[in-house]
């Protein structure tokens, strides 16, 4: 089963097999064209409305806010803030909201499989405020369990900040249940959706998510744009951490300042207008296929991949049971980077390293792995090619040296 027209992705004409979708995804023609269209036909700054093309740009920009709202089922488009990416979104939450919300002694729960962008801002905040960062223990498969979560929560716990799907282990967390547990204890739930929003249906209302972050480029969109979703009641309490044009109502020499309302007050400076418009086209494209279809197809691909690789005794798999399109592996006795370079000789793109999850090594006792991260444009034929190349890898050093 192939669920898309691969011709929509011009880069696939280069005969590459692209398995690094956790890092970034390929772009369909419609996304690139939507951005070109803006640059060719109505390239103007937004919110300047005195001339037609500026109004057109403003409308296109704000229309995407509405698209994002519908895509994740937020209650209002005012809850959608455009950022430069998931990292930016998380930093805004931590330093614009948590900085004032948390008090000395409060606890924030993370896990060791979180991405750097959901660890480092918290560690920095802990240096400024006397708060405690705790890691919920993972099970033997490096997955988060509800029991471990319940056991870690104390009456000091104020925030749980976790990925919906982690970027190396690829476990899909039960956000619906976690949010119920969090709210029973008056805990705010921050969900890093960078690896989940592109791959499955996200519903912030159904799952009662307090904050959600994700990046455009991991879901067919351009680099440089991302989203911060926050419930209105929290965004109203969040303060901007960047100041300048576009976000202020008025200011006086004596320091009297009034900022615009949410979400505009969090978007200082000229935003990435073309990129936001590109993200809108990406959302349209994804919705035409359907997120459920994408998720099911990727699960099927992963099962196929695991079933094939399991037959190769030289391949060590670290997370074969998780329900997402991410698979971490090593070839017995080979440094992961050498494996990645070997695969590159056959135009197969995989990532080697610690994948920005540098504390995960404490969990799996392996610092570096190769990671295959699938997307809906990948096929079983591409997997067959990978399997074949890994099977004949006895001559790996002959190929790469």
């Amino acid at each position, binding site marked *: 089963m192939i669920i898309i027209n691969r011709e929509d992705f011009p880069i696939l004409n280069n005969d590459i097999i692209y398995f690094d979708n956790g890092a970034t995804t390929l772009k369909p023609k419609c996304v690139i064209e939507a951005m070109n269209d803006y640059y060719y036909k109505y390239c103007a700054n937004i919110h300047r409305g005195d001339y037609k093309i500026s109004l057109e740009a403003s409308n296109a920009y704000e229309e995407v806010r509405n698209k994002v709202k519908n895509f994740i089922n937020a209650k209002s488009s005012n809850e959608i803030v455009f950022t430069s990416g998931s990292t930016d979104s998380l930093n805004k939450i931590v330093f614009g909201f948590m900085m004032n919300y948390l008090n000395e002694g409060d606890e924030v729960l993370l896990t060791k499989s979180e991405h750097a962008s959901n660890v480092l801002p918290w560690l920095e905040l802990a240096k400024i405020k006397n708060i405690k960062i705790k890691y919920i223990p993972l099970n033997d498969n490096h997955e988060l369990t509800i029991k471990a979560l319940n056991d870690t929560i104390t009456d000091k716990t104020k925030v749980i900040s976790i990925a919906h799907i982690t970027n190396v282990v690829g476990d899909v967390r039960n956000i619906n249940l976690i949010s119920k547990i969090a709210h029973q204890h008056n805990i705010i739930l921050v969900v890093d959706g960078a690896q989940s929003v592109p791959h499955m249906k996200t519903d912030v209302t159904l799952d009662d998510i307090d904050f959600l972050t994700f990046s455009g480029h991991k879901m067919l969109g351009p680099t440089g744009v991302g989203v911060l979703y926050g419930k209105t009641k929290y965004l109203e309490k969040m303060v901007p951490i960047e100041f300048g044009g576009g976000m202020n109502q008025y200011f006086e020499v004596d320091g009297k300042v009034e900022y615009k309302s949410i979400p505009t007050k969090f978007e200082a400076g000229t935003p990435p207008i073309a990129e936001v418009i590109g993200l809108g086209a990406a959302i349209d494209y994804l919705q035409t296929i359907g997120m459920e279809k994408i998720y099911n197809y990727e699960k099927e691909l992963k099962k196929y991949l695991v079933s094939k690789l399991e037959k190769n005794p030289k391949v060590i798999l670290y997370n074969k049971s998780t329900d997402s399109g991410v698979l971490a592996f090593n070839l017995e006795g080979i440094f992961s*980077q050498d494996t990645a*370079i070997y695969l590159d000789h056959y135009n197969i793109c995989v990532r080697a390293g610690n994948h920005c999850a540098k504390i995960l090594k404490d969990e799996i006792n392996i*610092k570096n792995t190769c990671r295959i991260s699938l997307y809906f444009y990948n096929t079983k034929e591409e997997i067959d090619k990978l399997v074949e190349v890994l099977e004949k890898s006895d001559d790996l050093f002959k190929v790469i*040296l």
Partner: protein
Amino acid sequence: MDSELKREIILDNYNSPFHKGLKNEKGYIKANTNNESCIDNIDIELKIENGKVVDATFDGEACAISTSATSIFLRKIIGKSVLEVKELIKNYENLIDEKPYDEELLGELMAYDTIYMQPNRKHCALLPVDTINKILKEVESGD
């Protein structure tokens, strides 16, 4: 050097590297280098007495190119004066950057004479040099 011999030198040094394992003893100066463009991560420690390298060890996780180059480098610099080490480094950097070099001086390091054809691996080959340079700098600034 034919490619079979090069591969043999690299793999020998990768599979059984010279002086792998740090001593962490007094008198050794240690430096770490994390390859910025990839994931190699090595520590090297040198013991320098009277301007001469008297011992050298390393440890870390790195690819075949970085590990082997480090191994060959350490074997070569023991017994050499700091000046001689600098001369070797200069020639080796020239080799990697396609500039003139002294083939005889480089010896086994000639195994990396075609690395320039894979630009993304130059950093790997230069990892031991970057690390040794850090130590030499520290020695010079120290006394």
